[in-house]
């Protein structure tokens, strides 16, 4: 996978809000079928970066290559149409609707002008089965009655439903218990095993090391380090995140993937 063209490649991305440089010269490769963890301290620019990829903000400098071709996402819709799905922390689920209704929201299947509940339920069921989400007892229960991990699962399934090639997840395990976290991490692995690229923002290094194939460290708006997860351990990752510099005596000094 690594020698092929990465699914998404960021080249010298810069973004500023007035005089504030939120992102400076960001280079990052996101390969298909792998989990890339985006880590960094508060205010490092993680949210700004994913919002730039998701089409919410246009970068001021640099270019985004999607499957090797330069793209300009002017709205979240452009990014969605290209195959980039973003699962934000608020998940954007309607608690009063059931799992099927939430997953198909905005993409309902019709039959003779009326909602085709059976076809929609089958579609949703298949997507959940593909992701090995087996803990929901009933696909017709309102999302409001689900646990945090299950809600996260539904939100991811909803994104995957739309043929996403890249799924971006913002703190998917924040505020989840141990078993719920395991459920979400399992889903992330399932996504990657199906050839989908996953970009995860996380504060929890335990989760990162459990699930990530690659790590990218942001520090004050700069990509200070990125590379395969094997190049890091918890101590070195924390050092990169908090100081933006290589830890002393680090064996395989990870370099920026590009440039």
């Amino acid at each position, binding site marked *: 996978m690594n020698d092929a063209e990465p699914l998404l490649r960021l080249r010298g991305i810069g973004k500023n809000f007035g005089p504030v440089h939120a992102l400076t010269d960001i280079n990052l490769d996101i390969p298909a079928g792998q989990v890339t963890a985006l880590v960094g301290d508060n205010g490092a620019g993680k949210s700004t970066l994913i919002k730039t990829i998701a089409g919410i903000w246009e970068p001021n400098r640099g270019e985004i290559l999607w499957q090797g071709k330069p793209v300009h996402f002017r709205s*979240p*819709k452009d990014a969605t149409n290209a195959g980039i799905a973003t699962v934000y922390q*608020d998940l*954007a*689920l*309607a*608690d*009063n*609707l*059931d799992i099927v*209704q*939430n997953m198909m*929201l*905005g*993409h*309902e299947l*019709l039959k003779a*002008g*009326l*909602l085709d509940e*059976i076809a929609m*339920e*089958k579609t949703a*069921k298949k997507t959940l089965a593909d992701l090995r989400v*087996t*803990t*929901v*007892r*009933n*696909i*017709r*229960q*309102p999302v409001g*009655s*689900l*646990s945090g*991990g*299950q809600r996260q699962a539904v939100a991811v399934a909803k994104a995957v439903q739309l043929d996403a090639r890249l799924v971006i997840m913002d703190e998917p395990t924040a505020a989840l218990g*141990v*078993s*719920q976290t*395991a*459920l979400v991490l*399992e889903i992330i692995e399932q996504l990657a095993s199906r050839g989908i690229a996953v970009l995860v923002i996380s504060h929890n*290094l*335990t989760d990162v*090391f*459990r699930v990530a*194939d690659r790590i990218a460290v942001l520090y004050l708006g700069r990509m200070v380090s990125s590379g395969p*997860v*094997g190049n*890091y*351990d*918890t101590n070195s990752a924390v050092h990169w995140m908090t100081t933006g510099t290589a830890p002393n005596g680090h064996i395989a000094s990870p370099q920026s993937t590009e440039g």
Partner: protein
Amino acid sequence: MTSVNQEPTPTNTDIITTPDASADLLANSFGDYVRIVGRRIRSGESGALPVIVGLIVIVVFFYAKNSLFLSAGNLVNLMAQSAFIITLGMAEIFVLLLGDIDLAAGYTAACGAVIALWMLALGDPWWAAVLVALAATAAYGALQGIITAKLGLPSFVVTLAGLLGLSGLLLYLINATGNIGVGGVISLHNGVINDIENGYLNPTATWIVMIAIAVVAGLAIFYGDFRRRTAGLVAPPVSVTLLKIAGVAIAALVVAAIANQNRGRLIVVEGMPWSVLVVLAILFIWTVLLGRTRFGRYVYAIGGNAEAARRAGISIVRIRTLAFMLCGLTAGMTGIIYASYLGSISNGVNGGQNVLNGVAAAVIGGTSLFGGRGRMLHAVIGGLVVGVIYNGLALLGLSAAAQLMWTALVLLAAVIVDRVTRRGSAA
């Protein structure tokens, strides 16, 4: 991969859902079904059950006070009396589901009635009068919707302005009719419109229509559950399907049996009022619209989480405008039913009180004021509760003052019961 922290992976078996989903979809057997329903009631997901129990209690109370209350004549009267409260409740449900409210709907109804009766007085055919009145009220509803949705204003304020404006328009319109609206009253002289509330199907037709409704509804329920079952999807147990069908059939036959009793004193009066059929027809169409179309799904989605709906690509402005338009349209229908009930329309119509009765009907029936939760059927159940109170207290010879205060108490009780039972599930 250097995994630094090797924790034991927890099992997923301990992940369970806390509140239950609908018993319809979880139960494997009838006993299961009863157990789940019981659990749901205890955890606050009681649905329409408390209201129906409340309705029965009120009915028993009035019957104990005056046995005439359950006479065929009074029950048919009750059906006719409740019709406009029910339809106004249905109008409100469209906007209540979004978390909005339409305070003007009572006067929208009155103005629609004035337009229809004015045209009838000028000699236009009844269908033209109805069409123009409904078009006007729907257009007015859409206007309120556009203002609310486009400018992001609270519907409470926009429709409060509508309430004031339309109560003025009502006076203006009746004045403008000149010698048609003498003394501020336009009389209704059209047979068809008059028959909505004052005409009856003959007993044979009553039986045929109600049996047909029972059969069609029964088949629809059976076919729907059967398809789910054969497709291997979650479906209620067969016994529950049969129970639902039996419930619909019994309700239809009881209404027909009551309506077909002779309730005249000097001459024979029997058969079901047309208003029952009109209400059932509106109930059916609006239920399909809310439950089986994209529009309906989007209304619930916006009421549940507007941001989620927006991100799913749903145009909130469009759906809200449509919902307000349908509210106006249904209010127009209410106006015509109301005029048929009164035999006239006057400039003294209390549109403010009517609309609040409509909202009360929807809320008593179980529709949430905060959006996302509710069904058209709630307006029927709640409208009957409001109708029963007005009818029963009038039968006991109590004044309008008592009627209003009792309705207030029941509304309050409904909201408190809703809140208390729901608190159990909030944790």
